[in-house]
C-alpha cells in the first residue's frame, strides 16, 4: 500500500509522543527549569511588586527561550544514531513532513508545559491579569518558532557537541524575544499589543515552510 503524507505525519507524531511520554524528563525538565529561573528573580533582586512587574515580560521570555532550547539537540540525534533517519530517507516521502512532525512533537512536550508554567510565574512576578492573554498568545507563537529554529540548530550539530545547537540558535531568537516582550509590556501599560502578535504570527507562517525545508537540507549534509 502506498503511504500518504497524513499517515506518515501521524505515524511519526504518535511514535515520538509515545517515546516522550515514557521518558518523563523530556517534559518535566523544561518545566522545572523555567520555574526555578523565574523564582530566582524575586530572591536575588527584590521582592518589590512594582519592580518585579516591570521586569516580568523580559524575565518570562528569557526563561522561556532558554528552557525551550534545553534539550533541542535530541530532536534528531537519537533517530540519527539508531538508524531511524535512514529509513525515512530511503522511503521517498517528503522529508518536510518528518521535520514538521518532529518540531510539533518537540513543541508539545516542551513548549506546552512552559505555557502552563508561565501562568504560575505570572503570579510570582505580579504580572497584571490583563497581560495574561498576550503573554500566552505570544508564548504559543514564540515557543513554536523557537522549536523550528532549534530544529535547524539540531540538524546542523548532529553528532557534534550538544551545546552547539543552542549557540547556533540563540542569536536568531532576538526578533522573537523583542516581539514577545514588547507584546506583554504594552499590555501592562494598557496599550494595543496586537501588532506584535501579528508580526510573530507572520514570522511563524514563513518559518513553518521555510525553516522546515532548511532543516531537511541541514540533515542531508550529514548524508554526504
Amino acid at each position, binding site marked *: 500500500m502506498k503511504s500518504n503524507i497524513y499517515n506518515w505525519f501521524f505515524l511519526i507524531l504518535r511514535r515520538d509522543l509515545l*517515546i516522550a511520554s515514557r521518558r518523563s524528563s523530556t517534559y518535566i525538565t523544561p518545566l522545572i527549569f523555567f520555574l526555578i529561573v523565574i523564582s530566582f528573580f524575586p530572591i536575588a533582586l527584590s521582592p518589590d511588586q512594582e519592580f518585579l512587574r516591570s521586569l516580568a515580560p523580559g524575565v518570562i521570555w528569557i526563561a522561556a527561550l532558554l528552557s525551550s532550547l534545553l534539550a533541542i539537540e535530541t530532536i534528531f540525534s537519537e533517530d540519527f544514531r*539508531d538508524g531511524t533517519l535512514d529509513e525515512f530517507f530511503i522511503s521517498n516521502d517528503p522529508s518536510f513532513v518528518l521535520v514538521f512532525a518532529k518540531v510539533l512533537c518537540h513543541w508539545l512536550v516542551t513548549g506546552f508545559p512552559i505555557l502552563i508554567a508561565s501562568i504560575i510565574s505570572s503570579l510570582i512576578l505580579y504580572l497584571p491579569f490583563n497581560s495574561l492573554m498576550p503573554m500566552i498568545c505570544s508564548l504559543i507563537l514564540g515557543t513554536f518558532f523557537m522549536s523550528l529554529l532549534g530544529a535547524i540548530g539540531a540538524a546542523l550539530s548532529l553528532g557534534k557537541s550538544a551545546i552547539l545547537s543552542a549557540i547556533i540558535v540563540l542569536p536568531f531568537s532576538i526578533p522573537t524575544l523583542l516581539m514577545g516582550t514588547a507584546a506583554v509590556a504594552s499590555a501592562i501599560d494598557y496599550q494595543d499589543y496586537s501588532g506584535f502578535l501579528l508580526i510573530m504570527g507572520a514570522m511563524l507562517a514563513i518559518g513553518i515552510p521555510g525553516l522546515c525545508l532548511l532543516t531537511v537540507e541541514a540533515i542531508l549534509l550529514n548524508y*554526504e
Partner: protein
Amino acid sequence: MLPKLKVSNLSCTRAGNLLFNNLNFEVNAGQNIEIIGSNGSGKTTLLRILLGLIHIGKGDMEWLDNKDNYNQFRDMECFYQGHSLGIKNLLSAEENLRLSSFSFGVSEEKIHSSLDRVGIERHSALASELSVGQKKRISIARWLLKDFGIYFIDEPFSALDDEASNLIEEIIEELNKKGASFVITGHRPSNVVSSQINLDHEV
C-alpha cells in the same frame, strides 16, 4: 527476466582511499549477493550508495533496467537495515514493528505472527528490557511485515547465537522462494546461498 538491480563500473573513493573500483554485479529475483570485507573495507558505504543515501559513488546503477524507475523502486520495494537496528528502547516489541516506517498497511495479525516467527514471546515487553540478540530478532521480524523486493542488510549475522543464525538463514531461504533478493554484508562468507563480492580483493 530482467535483473532487479544492475551495477556496472561502480567505484568509490572516500577520504583519499579507493574503497572499491569497477564493481560489476546484478541482483536477480530470488538470488542473493554477499559483500565480504574486513573492517573499513567499504561494505556499509557500498550499501548506502546503492540505496541512494550517500552520493559519492561513480558508476551506473540500473533498477529494473530503467534508470528513471530508481526512486519509485526504492520507495516500494527496498528494505534497509543498518548496523544500528532502528529499534527504539522505549517502545515495546510490537510497537517497534507497528510504528516503523516500513509498516504502512500492515495488519495486527501480521505484526504478531512476524514476532512469533522470530521467537519473541512477550510482544509487549519494552525493547530496553531485551538483550541485544533479542532486539536483533525484532529487527528481523520487520523483514516479514511486507513482501519487499530487495533486502539490504548490514551484517545480519553479528551478535547472534547459532539458533538465531539458523533462523536468519531459514527466513532468507523462505523469502528467496517468494522472489525476494538479499544484499548482505559480512566479515566472512555465511551459509547463505549467494554470489560473493570480496571488497578486500577488489582494490
